[in-house]
């Protein structure tokens, strides 16, 4: 029996009696990070990183939570479990499981570039590695963060010169905080959508330092948005909520913006391929660094990526999961002010 089984409820460790990121309610859930497709309602007990805890409380309310530090070893039944930085968003972790000398690592979502706020991805050596493959095709290779930040900043400057507000679209957890870092270097007039404000408030209370931003509310005078940058989750740009910023330009920040057709389909004024997932090279590097003998490929381009791994001599299999991709899985509550 393998240490982790791929069940219809999620990744299951029978020896420890727990699940990793289950998509159905279970007794014990170990959570990689706070995005809604990985951390779901209804389980009895949740184990997560210290930084993930406040975000889970915000999203899932009161539950039995246990928070740990990175590298902290705990035992569930006889299985040793530890969390290691995944670099995907604040608190995001890979889950390392060791039992009778055998080591498995489930990556959750990860990126290999250090973005300065999500923790630096740490390769963990293991026998079996479960990797995501959201951007597991060779057309997805990201520019370094500082270059993309420069592009975004240039676009903001140009938008302001045209007398318009700059609206940036990105995930409310993770991408939004990254964008704040980028924007605050050139602009101190930053507004955020209510959904992002809630996350922001939670993170500040948890002691995480973030740039100064203001919430978009009905009390804010329209004039105040002139020469400002507004950060909002996807979905907000197709709702009436956005009209208050007129005139404005919309820039979408997502790895999917790597392909022109997506930018055009989104009807955005600009697209920035800024992703919280590893690119093609990042995935390959991370996998090689684990030294794993067997790699399980989950959500994304799993069949192509897994086939390629096999062809370059890394034994691999694809696994179907119910995790989402970078755009489109976020539950955005529009007009929640």
């Amino acid at each position: 029996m393998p240490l982790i089984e791929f069940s219809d409820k999620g990744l299951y460790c029978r020896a420890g009696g727990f699940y990793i990121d289950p998509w159905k309610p279970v007794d014990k859930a170990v959570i990689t990070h706070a995005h809604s497709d990985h951390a779901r309602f209804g389980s009895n007990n949740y184990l997560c990183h210290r930084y993930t805890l406040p975000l889970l409380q915000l999203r899932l309310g009161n539950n039995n939570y246990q928070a740990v530090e990175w590298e902290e070893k705990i035992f569930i039944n006889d299985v040793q479990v530890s969390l290691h930085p995944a670099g995907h968003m604040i608190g995001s972790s890979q889950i390392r499981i060791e039992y009778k000398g055998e080591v498995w690592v489930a990556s959750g979502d990860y990126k290999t570039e250090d973005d300065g706020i999500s923790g630096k991805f740490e390769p963990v050596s293991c026998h079996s590695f479960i990797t995501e493959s959201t951007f597991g095709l060779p057309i997805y290779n990201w520019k370094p963060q500082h270059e993309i930040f420069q592009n975004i900043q240039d676009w903001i400057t140009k938008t302001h010169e045209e007398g318009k507000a700059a609206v940036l679209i990105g995930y409310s957890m993770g991408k939004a905080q990254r964008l704040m870092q980028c924007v605050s270097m050139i602009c101190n007039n930053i507004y955020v959508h209510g959904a992002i404000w809630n996350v922001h408030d939670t993170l500040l209370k948890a002691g995480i330092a973030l740039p100064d931003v203001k919430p978009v509310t009905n009390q804010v005078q329209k004039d105040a948005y002139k020469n400002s940058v507004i950060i909002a989750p996807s979905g907000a740009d197709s709702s009436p909520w956005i009209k208050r910023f007129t005139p404005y330009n919309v820039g979408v920040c997502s790895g999917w913006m790597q392909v022109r057709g997506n930018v055009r389909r989104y009807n955005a004024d600009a697209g920035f391929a800024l992703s919280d997932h590893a690119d093609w090279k990042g995935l390959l590097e991370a996998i090689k660094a684990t030294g794993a003998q067997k790699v399980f490929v989950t959500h994304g381009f799993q069949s192509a990526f897994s086939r390629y791994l096999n062809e370059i001599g890394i034994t691999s299999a694809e696994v179907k999961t119910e995790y989402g991709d970078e755009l489109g899985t976020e539950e955005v509550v529009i007009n929640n002010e």
Partner: protein
Amino acid sequence: MKQFAELVNILGTSTKTNDKLDALSAYFATANDKDKVWVIAIFSGRRPKRAVNSTQLWTWCNELVGLPDWLFEESYHVVGDLAETIALLLPETSSAAASHPLHYYLETLISIEKESETIRKQFIVSSWQAMTQIERFVFNKLITGGFRIGVSQKTMVNALAKTINLDASVIAHRISGNWDPLTTSFSDLLSEHSLSTDYSKPYPFYLAYALEDELTALGEPHEWQAEWKWDGIRGELIKRNNELFVWSRGEELMTEKFPEYFLLKDILPNGVVLDGEIIPSINGTPLPFALLQTRIGRKNVTKKNLQETPITFFAYDLLEYNGNDIRESMLTERRILLEKIVGETKHPALVLSPVINFNTWDELTNLRMQSRNMGSEGIMLKRKKSTYQVGRKRGDWWKWKIDPLVIDAVMIYAQKGHGRRSNLYTDYTFAVKDGDKLVSFTKAYSGLTDKEFAEVDSFVKRNAIEKFGPVRTVKPELVFEIAFEGIAASNRHKSGVALRFPRINRWRKDKKPDEINTLDDLKQMLEQYGK
């Protein structure tokens, strides 16, 4: 190349026509003259011939990248564009090598056309290596063609007009016709001079919008001239300097393709330009468009072709008479001259497109019902006082097409689209019932909203049964109403019919797959309209 690549980037992402116009006029105000000539050429469909083909580009890129073919293919299906796939796959250049100007690449592409593969490969690969990702994309696009980035020739002409202070209609005329970007300078191209030296130069076509309002909104019936709307290729027939030229609306010189017109060279008076429809007909009755298609692109025309599908010219307007541009005179005046010329020519290849007599709008509405029997696709309405304008304009000319034919069908295959539909299942194949079997009969790519496409895409992803390369067989469950303009017999299709301009009319969520039309229904339509 950098400046042009930036232009393409802005044109490709901006969502407002005014932004595109500004970007283009800024380009025309600052770029060098040689590059400008090429940009005019590219955006008016005058791309140089392919010096290398897609397979070569693909192979050379793969040699540089070292990936398996199947992975390249997989990537291509996600990106939906070969030029872009290659640009994304090639490693970023480390050196700050500067690229050459646009005209350098286009001129070199032309000059190496007949060189060995080694030389062509060397040029392509070294060009890639001196370019940024966006430059590579544009460069590849210039080679592979299909530069569809939401810029019409009209926008380009308007931007030019803004920069050089000439009327847009004058520019549209000067840049039309037969000129070679390789040998034409910017000032020559736009000078008056170009008109007097190029005898082949056509006038820009006057195009009609579809009728939007009630007929009564047009005013009095006697102010209007009605004609049948033909389904052929819009063309201009020119005789100047004792030479004959035939242009298509796509500004392609088609003189050599249709030997039927050769004799007209001797009969037509000098200094005339006729506007009309290139269409096969026998005794004044048009043949289906499918038959015209058998003549287009055919290099050698056989005697059989000439007998079975004789190409004619249905003339409906006269733009030049005695060497004078008469576009500013009234339609009625031009029509009198046109009838005189066609009458005197007396050649079966030149047919006068008739005027429909009517006294009331009701009468015309009834006559329109006969369109399909006349082999036409509706009625053209032209104000009798109208001048011949440039491009698509509202007000004086309207097209009033008949309703399309429709049939209910079920989707059975889906494939990912291209461009803004990349990585989204938007290209579908449809089937009708034949007993308990389903028979595919057409593909359709348009007619749904973005939201509907997203819905169907998600259905395909959940209900794919089999995978044949990029094609997915899907559970036959979704029913659509397919609209089309015509139907013809075809031995290339399993169903035995070929449709003219099929598209999705609407999603019949109210219908189940067993309620769709049958192959017999299609055959009946063929019997009725396709003969």
